[in-house]
């Protein structure tokens, strides 16, 4: 028994055994393509996380996906006004399964200091969120910690999460049509 990339493997002479779902989960977790939906100061912290000092690329994330169709992880960093809400929802709907959402900063999580008529009081009112990163704005270390938690989900969730009743029910509660076919 041994471990490669947190995946349990059995090593023998000339062969290595593991289960397929664990290998796939590990492969997914180590090549999460993020789609940054950055609107304000949290976006700047996210850019710092992508830069050479913090270097998200070492987690297989150097490829920013500015098209939602090839993205795995939607990173919402910043204030989302109510007018922008439908745009964010459309971006989420365009992403193909499997997909995860990271909500970065107080504004994306809860509206933050902007408790006002024009600001969405948390993106979880329109799309499901997997991991919340608190902070105003959070430091790159916190954003990386959030991404580590996303990785943990990617590695441990069922590969066919999208077919589960819970997941379908969750999307239904947001009035989002599942695109898992």
């Amino acid at each position, binding site marked *: 028994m041994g471990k490669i990339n947190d995946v349990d493997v059995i090593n023998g002479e000339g062969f290595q055994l593991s289960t397929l779902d664990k290998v796939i989960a590990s492969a997914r977790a180590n090549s999460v393509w993020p789609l940054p939906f950055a609107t304000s100061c949290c976006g700047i912290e996210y850019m710092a996380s992508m830069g050479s000092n913090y270097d998200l690329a070492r987690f297989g994330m150097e490829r920013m996906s500015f098209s939602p169709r090839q993205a795995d992880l939607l990173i919402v960093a910043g204030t989302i006004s*109510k*007018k922008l*809400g439908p745009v964010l929802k459309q971006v989420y709907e365009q992403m193909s399964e499997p997909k995860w959402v990271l909500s970065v900063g107080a504004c994306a999580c*809860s*509206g933050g200091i902007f408790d*006002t*008529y024009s600001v969405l*009081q948390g993106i979880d009112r329109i799309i499901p969120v997997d991991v919340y990163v608190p902070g105003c704005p959070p430091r790159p270390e916190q954003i990386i910690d959030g991404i580590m938690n996303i990785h943990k989900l990617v590695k441990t969730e069922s590969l066919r999460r999208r077919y589960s009743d819970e997941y379908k029910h969750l999307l239904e509660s947001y009035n989002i049509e599942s695109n898992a076919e």
Partner: protein
Amino acid sequence: MQSNLNNEMVLELLQKRFGDVIISATTPYDLLTIEVVSMSCYDIIAWIKDEPTLAIAYLTNLGGVHYPQNEGRELAVVYHLHSLTNNFRIRIKTFLSIENPTIASIVAIHASANWMERETFDFYGIQFKGHPNLVRILNEDSMDYFPMRKEFHLEDETREDKDDRFFGR
């Protein structure tokens, strides 16, 4: 730059031309501020633009104010105008009732009023008659109220976590 005009001169010209239409005139911070009858707002703004001695041809700003305690004249429309050739500024105020907040659009005089009138409509519900496209500009289209009117709370009404017991309200 020294101005070719002064407050007294301009007020005299306006009163000579429009008479009783100008309800009052003050000069807070040395800025000539006249209150006018809302029906004549369009004519005054058109005239001071075309009158060669004034040439007040630049619309600096246009906005609304809500005074809920002023019965019958709750909504104000304020125009800030500037003469670039004479370096002279003027502020024109007019009041409307909240039941029928209608005033003539000045887009035909100042094209720059287009978005400012849309904004004023968006936040105060003031109807600018003759505006080419009077729809919301900043808020979401589905919004069903005018958020800068004082009867509406600034805070988002859908928050459940703001319990008064914890916030001392």
